[in-house]
């Protein structure tokens, strides 16, 4: 029997789902070996009653409806995979405080009739997450590798090293040493160091790497003449709530 799979979008840009659809060469064969029960972005066929073997969930929890859907998906799925930065860390939307004040600034006093917005959180704040595929957006090769492993009954593994490792493999000149605010040392690898390879400092979109040494990077950049404010702002964008930048 084919494994039953569902794809769900909470609040985000749908870039992780889109990168799955961007696996143009593998798309038809991938969908041939699974039974897709829900993938609203790509199909109008959906069956929300069947239990799932694997659920891929993208986006942050940003409305009561998001939370309700997440809990329902968790209940009926053997494995729940958080896909992309919003699902794992909360996305760029979580990077600033004063959510209520900002909401009011944007929408005034309108009472929304369908669902109430709530402060953004990653999936792990509410449910157990069994596996993650990092990135903003995810790397489609990592998605294919993770999907392959999950379908074979093993769990995907994360790159435990920082972007710097991949950057060195490409023999790039170090942008940090050139005085740029490059977040390669504190960001999880897996992207292929695309930005530094284009002479663009890493902005951190794969999220914090385990045991990131933020204070050392911070001090180094302070010595290069950057202000605490601009360093904090840069590190916050993809830092989620796990990166404490003081």
């Amino acid at each position, binding site marked *: 029997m084919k494994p039953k799979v569902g794809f769900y*979008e*909470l*609040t*985000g*840009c*749908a*870039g992780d789902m*889109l*990168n799955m*659809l*961007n696996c*143009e*060469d593998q*798309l*038809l064969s991938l*969908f041939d070996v699974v039974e897709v029960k829900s993938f*609203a*972005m*790509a*199909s*109008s*066929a*959906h069956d929300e009653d069947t239990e799932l073997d694997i659920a891929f969930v993208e*986006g*942050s929890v*940003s*409305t009561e*409806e*998001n939370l309700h859907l997440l809990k329902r998906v968790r209940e009926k799925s053997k494995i729940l995979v958080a896909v992309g930065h919003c699902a794992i860390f909360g*996305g*760029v*939307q979580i*990077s*600033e405080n004063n*959510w209520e004040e900002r*909401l009011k*600034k*944007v*929408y*005034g006093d*309108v009472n*929304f*009739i*369908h*669902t109430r*917005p709530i402060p*953004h959180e990653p999936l792990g704040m509410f449910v157990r997450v069994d596996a993650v595929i990092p990135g*903003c*957006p995810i790397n489609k090769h990592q998605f294919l590798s993770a999907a392959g492993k999950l379908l074979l009954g093993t769990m995907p593994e994360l790159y435990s090293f920082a972007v710097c490792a991949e950057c060195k493999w490409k023999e790039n000149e170090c942008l940090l040493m050139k005085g740029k605010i490059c977040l390669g040392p504190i960001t999880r690898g897996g992207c292929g160091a*695309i*930005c530094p*390879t*284009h*002479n*663009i400092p890493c*902005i951190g*979109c794969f999220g914090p790497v385990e045991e990131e040494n933020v204070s050392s990077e911070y001090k180094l950049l302070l010595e290069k003449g950057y202000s605490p404010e601009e360093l904090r*702002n*840069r590190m916050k*964008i993809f830092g989620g709530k796990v990166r404490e930048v003081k």
Partner: protein
Amino acid sequence: MKINIMPLARVEGEGGIYVEMEDERVKEVRMDIYEGPRLIETVVLGKRPDDVISIVTRICSICSTSHRLASVRGFERAGGVEVPEKIRLLRKLVHYGEYIESHSLHYYLLALPDFFGYPDAISMAEKYGDLVLGGLELKKFGNFIMETINGKAIHGENIRIGYMGRIPEKDALEHIKSRALALIPVIEDGIMAFPAMEIPDYMEEETNFICLVPEDDGFGFIGNTIITSKGERFDVEEYKKVTNERVVPHSFAKRSSYAGSPFTVGALARVNILGERLPGKAGDFFRRLWSERWKRNPLFNNLAQAIEILFCLEQIPPLVDRILSLPDPELKEPEVKEGEGTGAVEAPRGTLYHHYKVENGRTVECDIITPTAQNLDDMEKYLRRAAENLVKNPPEDFELRLELIPRAYDPCISCSVHMLRVKVKK
């Protein structure tokens, strides 16, 4: 009778349709937008412009390149930054890449299944394999262009304010040129697959169209002047005269209307207003296929998208030649310290505005108006007209007939929930 379609499938983001009818009378019609708000415009305040362009790209995946282009243009106009010609042309090329990817995803994989009677492209592939594979090839090519020029297909970072990190290699550009030529017959077949089918008229009604006048003469997607189907023109700095936003309780996306009436932006607007300017085979197809019905029927947006794919493919070879004939400019980052400006581009789904104000090198004002937000009022108008015409004799596929309308607009709901003006209070 109540029809509540939720979620609306084969669109980007979470939305739905609600129609309430009583005794053959349509009581209420709504395009509901459930997609949660992310308050992106408030996240960018106080940040450096080079941080802001990375954040706003994340508003949307399918049009991340258009968001990047509109944002860098906004900051460039705010700071009076000149863009070297080679970089301007490379932006044009990457934008064609986005159009090819976005339009082929929608046309082949999300819209055509409706007309062939399938729930999705995967099940359609069994019988119409060539069509689906052709769409996937085009989509892959669009992504290749974006990866080559912007680093990534989604949220690429190579396009910067006033410069770019790296100029793409000659070999990659030559490859793009030859692939474009090879794919022209694919989209010609794709266009021909559409007109053979009957396009229903149960929603037809006149409307207004709005798009940008291209900065280079002819047809195109980047410019500083807004034009309406009535012939009025506005500078992009006056964009609020045409967008007039308001908040409604059933949607996290704000709404727009022009002179009190809803309007349509996107491929259909561009082709209806500027179609006479289409060159080459795209122009031939336009003259052969276009009729007055295109001004009344949003379902022709699908076909307008297919014609634009052909336009992009035909433009790429001469554009690559021009890019390769120019020397590489010096790649240095300009500083945007003070100023205010609006950057606009035609995203695949329609006109996209990014307005910024910068003080002391920090962003103090941000206003982003997306195409789908502008289209929501017109979607509701056409849904109402359709419901009024169908309610007397409700067809079995009532829901599908309603769904066809917003889906034809290729709505990008993530985009639509992020537009408003925010100022820093001092």
